[in-house]
């Protein structure tokens, strides 16, 4: 049982990193980033190639940074032009991006699935006293939680974090108070892409790499964000762990039901409490 809880925690933490990026971008740009899963997939593949040439640790640092820069460009040359238009236009833009990235991945790495080994330091298992558990998954849990703690601290205590919270509460007022909303948005989109990149690098040795991995995780991440509440950061964090745990526990105890669980959860939440667990507003 404790192993299942840890499994759920590992998957939940991965969702946590992904969904906080998605929720941040939604808060600032009002856009549901359909490219989030594709960015995550791209990061996993790039990290695979990069750690083959250099080392996993280089990839862990370099890939999120590169993707953050890419996010900056997407915001500057894409999303920024769509401010004031229907939110659906931004959805379609990121949807187009998904197709481009999927094509890049398929033409560079092909359509076969890859599994990669964790770096030698993290290979094998660790004895936790109550159970032995793969070391790499413990590493995923630690890094993910650390990243999210860092993010929360940044949002709560830094000046830019204050601007981010102000701008996602009320764009126009924040702008009138002298906050450069476009710049804050660019920061946040870059951060969101960077977090998706981090999740991708972490997922490489943990899950299997395939061209379908992006879509699969994207839909679960959507569910996490919607269940947690659009426009909130804490809500999705709770929901991510919840869905991770539900996923691993039903997979053992009710395997036929397990595939339905996330979708049913989303359905119920949207119908009964459209603002999600902690959302202050409904999903637009």
């Amino acid at each position, binding site marked *: 049982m404790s192993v299942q809880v840890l499994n759920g925690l590992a998957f939940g933490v991965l969702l946590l990193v992904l969904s906080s990026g998605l929720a941040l971008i939604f808060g600032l740009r009002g856009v*549901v980033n359909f490219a989030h899963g594709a960015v995550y997939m791209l990061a996993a593949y790039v990290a695979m190639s990069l750690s083959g040439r250099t080392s996993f640790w280089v990839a862990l640092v370099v890939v999120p940074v590169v993707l953050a820069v890419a996010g900056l460009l997407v915001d500057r040359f894409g999303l920024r032009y769509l401010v004031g238009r*229907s939110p659906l236009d931004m959805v379609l833009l990121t*949807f187009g991006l998904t*197709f481009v990235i999927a*094509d890049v991945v398929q033409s560079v790495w092909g359509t076969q699935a890859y599994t990669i080994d964790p770096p030698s330091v993290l290979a094998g298992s660790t004895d936790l006293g109550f159970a032995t558990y793969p070391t790499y998954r413990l590493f995923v849990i630690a890094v993910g939680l650390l990243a999210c703690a860092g993010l929360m601290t940044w949002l709560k205590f830094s000046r830019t974090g204050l601007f981010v919270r102000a701008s996602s509460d009320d764009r126009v007022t924040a702008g009138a108070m002298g906050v450069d909303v476009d710049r804050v948005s660019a920061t946040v989109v870059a951060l969101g892409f960077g977090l998706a990149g981090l999740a991708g690098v972490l997922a490489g040795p943990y899950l299997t790499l395939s061209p379908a991995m992006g879509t699969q995780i994207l839909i679960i991440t959507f569910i996490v964000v919607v269940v947690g509440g659009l426009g909130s950061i804490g809500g999705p964090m709770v929901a991510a762990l919840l869905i991770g745990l539900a996923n691993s526990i039903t997979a053992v105890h009710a395997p036929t039901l397990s595939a339905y669980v996330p979708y049913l959860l989303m359905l119920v939440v949207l119908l009964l409490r459209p603002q999600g667990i902690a959302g202050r507003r409904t*999903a637009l």
Partner: protein
Amino acid sequence: MSAPTVADTLRRARRGARWEVAGWVVLALVGLGAPYVLTLYQLQLAQQAAIMGILALSIGWLLRQTGQLSFGHAAFYGIAGYGTAYVAEHASLPIGLTLLAGIGCGVVAALVVGLVTIRVPGIAFAMLTLAIGMLVWVAGGQLHSITRGADGLNVSLEGSLLGKDVVMYGNPVDAWPLVWGLLMASVAALWALSRTTWGRRLASIRDNEERVRFSGYATYWPRVVAFTVSGLVASLAGTVNLVTTSFISLETLYWSTGGLALIVAVIGGVRSVLGPPVGAALFIVLQNYLSGSGAHYQAVLGVVLIIVVLVAPGGLAEIAARARTAAVVRVRHRATEPAPPAPARDPLDAGAAPSTDTAGARRAAAR
């Protein structure tokens, strides 16, 4: 010269509509001649495009008329296909009834989904339809005895449909009049529907739901019906797809089937009823042309979508309309010396038009 009155404007709009109808009738008749001009392979592509066009039309029309983006239409498309296959296998009904039963399955599914989801606004609606679509896909994978899962299901339909053995529709030359006719009939029906009072009311609900409710009109049922109609058209596409290919697999239920149709609809332009089918035709041609040269059609499609969203949110239809307006203005400008005022946009389109002012932003956010 006095300013044009409301009656003048209406008369001009009606005259315009008459010309539009005449143009479509000509297009429909010309299209019937396709088998005499195209090769068999090209005709097969045209048939694929037409079926995809019907699906794109259903999603595009819903988006245009209610402002709601559905990512779950693959479910109705697939349910209609599987429904037809199931009825054909387990009940010995005449072929016409079998097909109707299949379409009925899709329509009922759309009605149920519509009843539950239609009140949910904006992005949440898109996500909710996505979740329901994926739920159907998961269920399809688990009901292996009915769907045969990823292996797909070969269906043998029997009987005679519209004077031909139904097996004959596997041949594009025989199937083309049926497929083309259905496409044009759907275009015409949806166009006519959006011009009725009900269609206008849907557009008002899209622009300001609260205001319409405040004015004393129901806002729930019209949208449920619109969703069901859209589901009906998607089901039609699903059943026609089954009749022409005799094969259905789990892929049809996956959300990307609907997602692709949505992209195609947006590229073609959802503001015109003809836009989605044109987008579908373009997609099939592009896919076929590019798959011969390295298969980068996904990237091209994505880039085209990005450009369309950034530059011409109304898609090809808007580009065509802009070109026409420009031409008309130029011709009139030459004929009469004083320049006429720029033609006003259709007020129904104003909500979707690009606007950078904050009022527009708020209106867009409220939708």
